[in-house]
Every structure is written in C-alpha cells, then in structure tokens.
C-alpha cells in the first residue's frame, strides 16, 4: 500500500489509520518513517531520542489524525507534528546526550579529528534554540513564519536566530581549519 497512490486511496488509508489499523499505520510508516526519523534526529541530535520521537508520533497518530483536515500534503503535516514532538522534547531538556547513561563512556571520549572538522560537528555545537531554526530553515526548507509558529517565537526572532546560527557556524568552521 502506498500513500503516493491516488487521492482516493490516500483518503481511505488515512481513514483506516484514524481507526487504528496496524496495516495503515505500517503503510504510513514505510512511506514517511525514514524522513520523519531524519528530521527528528537533526532536531534532537541523538539517535535514541529520535527513535522515541518517531515512536510517539506513530503511536499517537490515529488520535492526531482525527484533527487532520486533509488540506495540504500529508507529509507536510506529519513533519510539523514530528517537529513539534521533537521540539517539546528539546524544551523539556529530556535529551539523552545531556546525561551519563548507557553510552556515557562513548560520550566521554573526545570526538575524532575528522568529525571535529566536519560541518555536522559544527552544527552539533550550536545551542538547541539556534540549531532548531537552522535545521528547519536551511535543511527542511520551512519559511520563517512556519518556524515562528512551531517554536512559539516571532518571525523576527526566527530571522535573528538564523543569522546567529550561521555566524556561529562560520566561526566554528573557520576555527576548525
């Protein structure tokens, strides 16, 4: 089953998912799960947290779909829901990278030189509030208005945060060279 099929099949798939059908949920996961996982990972910065975010999104999806009005593309709505769950996680400070847990020993090791020099490492050095705007704007392509709505800030604040994030990124990359 594919959500990229005609509108009729997508509508019936959504209706089945609303009713909690495991097949419909599986189909939606297979279609969109990887993209949502990548988005969650980029926002929360840790694989296990991204797993929890996507897990929660799909477990809660039948309930959330009751409020979905089928305007716009489903993937866009799913991404907004995922971003919201990931951002809630960031706000509540529940990321696992903050505390010494299962992988505490690995986290204690200094990063390898190749990683330290990379763009990804530079992105990871950004504080959460700046990284979230950078990821949503530059990687996911959201408009500042949408980011403002997702983060609960003004459009101006979103622009300022992006500018600061890019400046810090530039400094980080230059100091790493």
């Amino acid at each position, binding site marked *: 089953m594919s959500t990229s099929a005609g509108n009729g099949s997508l509508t019936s798939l959504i209706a089945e998912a609303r009713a909690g059908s495991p097949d419909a949920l599986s189909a939606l*996961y297979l279609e969109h799960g990887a993209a949502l996982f*990548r988005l969650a990972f*980029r926002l929360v910065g840790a694989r*296990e947290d991204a*797993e929890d975010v996507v897990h929660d999104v799909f477990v809660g999806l039948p309930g959330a779909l009751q409020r979905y009005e089928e305007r716009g593309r489903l993937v866009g709505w799913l991404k907004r829901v995922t971003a919201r*769950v990931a951002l809630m996680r960031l706000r509540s400070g529940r990321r696992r990278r903050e505390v010494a*847990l*299962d992988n*505490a020993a690995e986290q204690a090791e200094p990063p390898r030189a190749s990683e330290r020099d990379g763009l990804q490492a530079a992105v990871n050095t950004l504080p959460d509030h700046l990284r979230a705007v950078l990821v949503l704007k530059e990687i996911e392509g959201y408009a500042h208005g949408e980011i403002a709505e997702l983060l609960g800030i003004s459009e101006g604040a979103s622009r300022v945060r992006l500018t600061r994030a890019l400046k810090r990124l530039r400094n980080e990359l230059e100091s790493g060279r």
Partner: protein
Amino acid sequence: MTWKDELRRIPAPEPPQDLLERILASRAAGVRVVLPEERSTVSRRTALLVTAAAAAVVLVMSTRGGDRGPVDPENGYQDIAAGLSFLPPDAMAQEAGPPRRPRYQPVKSLRVARAHGGTWTYQTCTVFDDVLTNCRGRLTITVADARWEGGPAWLVSHQQKSVRGRAPDTLRTPPDSTYFEGSTLRPMYAAQGGVKFRFVRRFTGDTVREALDIGGAHPRSWRASAGIPAAQDAPLVLRWAGRVDLTLLLQVLSLDRWWRGSVYSVGVVGPDPSRTAFAPVDLRVVGSGRIEVPAGRFECWKVELRESPESMLTLWVSKDRGWLVKTEQQGPDWRAESALISATPPAP
C-alpha cells in the same frame, strides 16, 4: 557547491529495523500518546492584543470600589487554602474543563514484597541562568512498617527544611503522616498540621473525604469529598507540597527499558466540583545508566514523569531497590535538581 548545499547533504541515520515493530507492539499493548495540537491561526499580535485588553478589564474591575463584600464560602476556601503553605498551589489552580486522561495503561502489577522502610534525605538545588545556584532546601522522607485498623500498612511522613548556612534549620512545612494499604499502596488516611490547623483526608474504596479545621481567634472548618477515578485496587500517589510522592510506588514497579504506566495522583478536592483533584501521572522509562550522588553510586533507570503537557520531570530510580536517587526539572531559564544525600538503610 556552497556550504549551505553541503548542510542539506549532511547524512542522518536511518531508523532502526525494529522501530515499526515496537510502534505496533506499543499500540497493541494499549499505549496511547496524545500528540501536540496545531496552534490556532490567530496571529501572535492579535493574541497579545486580546490578552492586553483582558488584562486591562481585570485591572479596572479589581480596582473599582475600595470595600470588599462578605467572604463567599467557596472563595473563602480558596483564600484559606492559598494562604497555607502546605496546600500545593498548583492543586488549587488546576484548570477547569475536561480532566486530562492518562497517557499510558494504568499501573497494575506491583511487586509489593519489594516495599521496604527507611529514611531518605534529598537536597534540592536550583540553578538560575546557569549561574545563580541556591541549595537551601532539604527534604526527608520516612517510610515505616505500621498497622492501620488492624491491617498491615506503611506509614510515610515528610519533613521539608530550609538550610541557611550555620543557622538552625527551619521547618518549612508542618508534620504529616499518611497510612498506605500494604498490598495496593493506596492511601487510607492522611493528616497534616498541628495546633493551628489540621487537614485530614480519609480514603474509602472509591471516595476521598477531606476536612480542614483552622483554630485560633477565627476558627473555620471546611469539608469536601470526591469520587476517585480508576480501579479501586489501582495504586494512588499523593501530591504533597506541589510534588507527587513516589517513594513507595517506585520500590514495587517492575521497571525495564520499555516500561511505561500511569497512576492517578490525589491533590486537594476543595469546594469547586469543576476542578479535579485527581491528575494522571504518566511514567516512562527512557534509558538507564550509572549516576553518582552524595549518598553513593547507583545503577539507575531514567524515567520521565509527566503531570501535564507542560510539566516534565526526570527521575533516576535505582535498579536494585527502586529508590528515587535524583530528580531533575528544567524551565526556560532555570534547572532544579534533587539528589539523595543520605539513606537509611545505607546505600550498598
């Protein structure tokens, strides 16, 4: 290719193979998650204008006329309750409207044989703006074997003190005693107070009855009761001074990496039936690890506690005995940590 293009090409990992399986297993097990709703399309500016207008109306209304009328019995209860430090302010300010539903399946299987007595003392530090640290609060929780109306019970009491340098500790809350039923860990009788006031709650199968008696020059008494939600043998936790006390419950849960469950907490009923005294407490294990606190080093489960969509608390619970070792809560510009500084029986 610009570095912005490179940014979009940063690789991200693929989801693990078993994630879909775990999602379907969670749903099959009855786990339900309420996802955040989309915000209203009303602009922030409009919302601010509406809020400002409402604030202006409230200001005008509150400053009209200098004399207050006689105390309304219902508001009087709120006034009295709000003025007493032992009543959790958040319980008095619960939103009206439909009560929040538990996020997970109710906690059922308890290993009650694991419950044990002892004394646990925690120090709470609050850090503001990553700079200003305040470590003045100290909480001691005592659990003892007891009997209530002829049956086995646990007696739990709390002592919250302010610690200020070399000055003697100041007791911040009056003494309290709660008796919990031995096999279900449901409260049966809870009392707090002393000469000036006394607040007593009695629990029967499906009802809580509370009584507040205030002495002194202007004695007053208030009575209220409410039906307890959930099954009659489900565990209940008490809200105490704005927090839920999980000391006994955590000892008897069978935590594992994917454990999750919900219990109801009991706050203050008060006189307003539209407010609920019972808030679900959602618990979920999110990791494990070894942490060090002044009382020792512990292998712990890391547990998320959710009392409302906005309120998150992280707990570290020792794997061996179910002790609450540390809690952490984070706000926009503050962080509060409570760590176990001593325990009797002593930590292994």
